[in-house]
């Protein structure tokens, strides 16, 4: 894995800084609202990490990630609300079901690539959107969705600590995983799939593993988010805008790097917040999208690459 001292230092600093955020509120340096914004950013970061594990390296671009997130969210919401399953059980079950969903996404990836695959995943999301509205609306809440779902925490600080711990655990776990030879194999898969199998590796197994890990993260984050929000609305969940936000967070952060998508998620979430005072209405989304587009066209490798380049230059000079 080849970890160096500065890896430990950087992770230590990141974890400490994130866990100490609520103290800034105590000191009056930061508003409670900011903490809530950070909670949103943490969940978006997990979704973006999940996307990155599936699509960032392998070249199988998912346009339907809310399909996976939705399974996790609906899974635990229905189990806990309609069947009275305790949350300690409903969340792991929901994650498990989401991983089965990950295998469903794997099916087209066994035969088709590129644009085809992206399109099929988009159709998966649309299908899920239609399904939750018409199949057993007594369970899914139909078009209206579900509300009154049990929440796990009370108050911004507790919600934040839960979200940030989850996010850091997921980020560290995936980051370590991607530093192993498995991560190298996924890069290789995205660059030349035939040559990977010509090097003696089963590409199906690699894809399956990536998709399962991605589904695990998506299901976990989706499930915890629903128990934070306490409600669930299909139109917002299976919206092209949420696909957009996840992909753009991962891309402008830096696809394939795990930490990049975390950066991207915080950047996007806070960009939206900072724009609020100047542009209170829907203009915000226009600016936000335009910034994303320009950043993407300017540096397709993302913020991570910009920072990395900058650090290297500093290092070189010192």
């Amino acid at each position, binding site marked *: 894995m080849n970890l160096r001292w500065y890896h430990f230092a950087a992770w230590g600093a990141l974890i400490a800084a994130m866990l100490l955020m609520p103290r800034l509120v105590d000191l009056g340096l930061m508003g409670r609202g900011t903490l809530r914004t950070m909670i949103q950013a943490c969940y978006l970061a997990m979704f973006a990490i999940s996307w990155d594990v599936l699509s960032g390296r392998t070249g199988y671009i998912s*346009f339907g990630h809310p399909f996976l997130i939705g399974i996790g969210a609906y899974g635990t919401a229905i189990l806990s609300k309609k069947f009275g399953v305790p949350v300690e059980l409903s969340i792991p079950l929901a994650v498990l079901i989401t991983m089965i969903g990950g295998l469903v996404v794997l099916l087209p990836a066994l035969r088709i690539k590129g644009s085809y695959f992206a399109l099929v995943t988009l159709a998966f999301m649309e299908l899920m959107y239609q399904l939750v509205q*018409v199949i057993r609306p007594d369970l899914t809440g139909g078009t209206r969705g579900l509300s009154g779902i049990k929440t796990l925490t009370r108050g911004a600080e507790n919600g934040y600590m839960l979200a940030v711990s989850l996010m850091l655990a997921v980020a560290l776990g995936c980051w370590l995983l991607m530093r192993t030879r498995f991560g190298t194999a996924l890069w290789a898969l995205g660059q030349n799939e035939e040559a990977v199998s010509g090097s003696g590796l089963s590409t199906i197994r690699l894809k399956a593993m990536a998709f399962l890990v991605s589904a695990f993260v998506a299901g976990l984050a989706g499930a915890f988010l629903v128990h934070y929000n306490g409600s669930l609305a299909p139109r917002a969940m299976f919206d092209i805008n949420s696909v*957009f936000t996840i992909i753009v967070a991962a891309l402008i952060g830096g696809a394939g790097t795990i930490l990049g998508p975390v950066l991207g998620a915080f950047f996007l979430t806070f960009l939206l917040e900072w724009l609020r005072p100047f542009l209170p*209405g*829907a203009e915000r*989304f*226009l600016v936000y999208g*335009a910034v994303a587009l320009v950043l*993407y066209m300017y540096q*397709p490798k993302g913020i991570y690459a910009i920072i990395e380049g900058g650090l290297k230059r500093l290092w070189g000079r010192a």
Partner: protein
Amino acid sequence: MLQILIQGLLLSGLYALIAMGFTLIFSVGRVLNLAYGAYLLIGGYAYFYFSQQLGLPKIAGVMLAGVLGCVLGLLKYQLLVKRVQGVHSAVEIATLILAVVLQSAVVLIFGDSSKILLPIVPGVERVASAAIPYSNLVATIISWAILIGLYFFVRLTHTGRAMQAVSMDAKGAAISGIDANRINMITWGISGTLGAIGGVFFASYTQLYPGMWVAPLIIAVAVVIVGGIGSIIGTLVVAHIVGFMEIIVSSWNPELRGVFTMLLIILVLVLRPRGLFGREEIH
């Protein structure tokens, strides 16, 4: 029975029109242009603005929507696609972002709620037990007129044949002196126009709201892939298969309409990725 036949024809004609604008870009530019959905959206809202808010004649509204779509197509080619051309996932992602930006522009100007489009031609014709709005009938007739026109344009005119040449073999076409840039511009322009007009019809067939473009986009792409990239006839045939299936399913259980269409698309793409009439694989 008759009802299904007529409604099937109406919907299929619409799908064919939308898919046709898409297949042009797909075959000539080799680009999965996800912002194609935005043409539908802009077309629908442009029509709403010109003919319902400004009160211009309806026909002028349709035409202006088409012009706007054309301009949008050209701009997109010049400013965006040309820059990232060659990297497929980059084009897909950039066009997806653009579509979302345009959608938020629509929300900004017109708000988030659904709008009701007045029928292009008022009145309803009753055939058997079916109510056929004149509007839909007109949309279908115009769609067919455009499709036939396009077919002859591609087959018979010099420009049309150059488009075909570029779509078959871009390098070969360049060697034989075809200006690929010009052909690309024309294609993006036509595609934008068709998309915008398709959007007007589609919005009057269903609803006009900011997220209206996603489902028809998926259907258009699927129809094109299944029908064979660049094949006008294949696109027509598959548009009718999808249109009729959708009508048949919804006459049996209207709620399952969307579910069924998406399932069909997923199944066909997974089982027959080369399409039914396809000549090659895309990447």
